[in-house]
């Protein structure tokens, strides 16, 4: 149960003269929910982009399920390995329906070529449609399946983005500020939801989030970044007590 799912060593990302991530170590073990927090511009999303292959890290290594991910591996291949992600600013396929959004995520696991797909020679299309419908049903989105993604209210768009990421059959899911723009009620529902999908789909979760209630409630461990550097790591209780974190990010209780 405690095998390492994601193991980042000495990750460094420089953009010209700016060091966005500086020598970061980070480990996520199987079944954990790990949070990555820190002030705006601390380099959290850059870490996600390095892990998912959007950026090629300047230095350091990333291992997934014990195997190092080669430099220059493209994002699609990394998703295929089993790392799914959501985006800070929602990135759905806006002109497509809810159903189609989920189906796109199934494409890479279909055994087909352009001919068998166009002429429906194998039953792959039917298989993934059934899978996608089952997923939508589990997620309570089935009644919206023919709705254009862009017509959904904000909260449901967030939900769909996570459902779509789940459709790629991930081992590890990276959530980039899933609670952004949500009210306290929605945020606490989201907390429950994340814990629920972790159990149901046997997921490991790495989450970037600014809502401290949510972070403290669901995280097993927390990493705190500031100016690209790791300034603290530990359990929620340890982080809340850590003076450096309070100074850099959390602040004193009454000015939040």
């Amino acid at each position, binding site marked *: 149960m405690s095998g390492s799912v994601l193991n980042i060593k000495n990750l460094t990302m420089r953009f010209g003269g700016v060091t966005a991530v500086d020598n970061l170590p980070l480990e996520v073990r199987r079944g954990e929910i790990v949070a990555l927090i820190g002030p705006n511009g601390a380099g959290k999303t850059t870490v996600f982009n390095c892990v998912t292959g959007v950026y090629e890290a300047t230095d350091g290594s990333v291992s997934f399920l014990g195997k190092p991910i080669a430099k220059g591996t493209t994002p699609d291949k990394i998703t295929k390995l089993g790392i799914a992600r959501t985006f800070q600013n929602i990135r*759905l396929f806006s*002109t497509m329906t809810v159903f189609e959004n989920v189906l796109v995520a199934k494409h890479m696991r279909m055994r087909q070529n*352009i001919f068998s797909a166009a002429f429906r020679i194998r039953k792959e299309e039917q298989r993934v449609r059934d899978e996608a419908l089952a997923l939508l049903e589990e997620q309570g989105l089935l009644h919206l399946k023919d709705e254009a993604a862009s017509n959904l209210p904000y909260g449901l768009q967030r939900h769909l983005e996570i459902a779509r990421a789940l459709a790629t059959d991930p081992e590890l899911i990276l959530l980039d500020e899933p609670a952004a723009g949500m009210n306290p009620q929605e945020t606490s529902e989201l907390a429950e939801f994340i814990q629920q999908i972790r159990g149901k789909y046997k997921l490991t979760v790495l989450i970037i989030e600014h809502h401290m209630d949510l972070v403290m409630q669901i995280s097993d461990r927390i990493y705190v970044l500031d100016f690209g550097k790791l300034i603290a790591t530990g359990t929620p209780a340890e982080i809340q007590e850590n003076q450096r974190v309070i100074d850099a990010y959390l602040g004193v209780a009454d000015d939040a």
Partner: protein
Amino acid sequence: MTKTQKFISVLLLVALYAVIFVLEQTLAPSEMLFTVLKKGAIYALVAVSMNLLNGFTGLFSLGQAGFMLIGAYVYGIFTIPIDARASVYQYFDGGVIQFTVPLVVALIMAGTAAALIAALIGLPVLRLKSDYLAIATLGFAEIMRAILQWDKLGPVTNGSNLLRKFPTFNDFNIVTGGKTIYMSTLVPFIIVGVCIFVIVLVINSSYGRVFRAIRDDERAAEAMGVSLFAHKELSFVISSFFAGVGGALLAMYQMTVQASAFKAAMTYEILLIVVIGGLGSVTGSCIGSFLFIAASEWWLRGLDSGSFLGISAPMLFRAGFRKVVFAVIIMAIVLFYRKGLMGANEFSIQGIANFFKKLFTPRKRSAK
């Protein structure tokens, strides 16, 4: 689409083909209608293939004329009868290619040649985005045009001279004992119909879905495990294949082929059809094509030759005025129908029914 809707659609298509067949047997072959139908069908195919790339995959490519050119030449080169080659290739000792292939094989070869060249130039070009891709593909088409006119390639391409004497649409007419069964419009319609049907199958497949996902958001598509390059290349190759077939059909329609005719203006015409019909609408491209060809070849002819809609004004309506009016119409469409006639919707029985239902439902005074 429900079963009944599918059934009605098929029935309507069969009816369309039947009407064309009957018209061809009854009207004179020289009727303007047939020109419009033939050329319209060819442009419909090329427009749909361009729409697959520009409308469905979101790749702004302007290489269509180049791929049509390749298709037209491959078709011409491999179908000119052997005994006619000496006269066609008169400056090149009858050319080097001394065999012909059956028409259907030549059509497939035309598409395949265009697809192969697309696969090659796609390697560097598809890494570019939006405007840059447009410039690169436009440049490719111009280069193709120059290469095929190159004197050194004369034994194959006949240099800057015409290719002619290959089978044309008129060869589809069947003459039996003094009576002619006219098929010169029907057969191209069938070929185009089959091609568009295949493109629609691709669009409706898992691949088509991925193409649209790439159009909507490249980075999200990539995060869903979609290889951007492989799928862009695939879309480009499929689109070019059918542009090549379209080029071959255009050669058959024109009866002669000359590289110099495949100018960028041809690509713009097709782009115009795609935009008028609606980016992301197959039926839009088809309707747009016939409207465009009918307007430019037929309905607006009078503007060039003295009298239009019964108004005789030779001072105003003279050579070139048609293009002025045409430009104004296009500007109006782009200004007021920005999404084209169909938007991203498809023409359907249900759609028409809904349209009329809305039209005849009394509007409620207050909203909701």
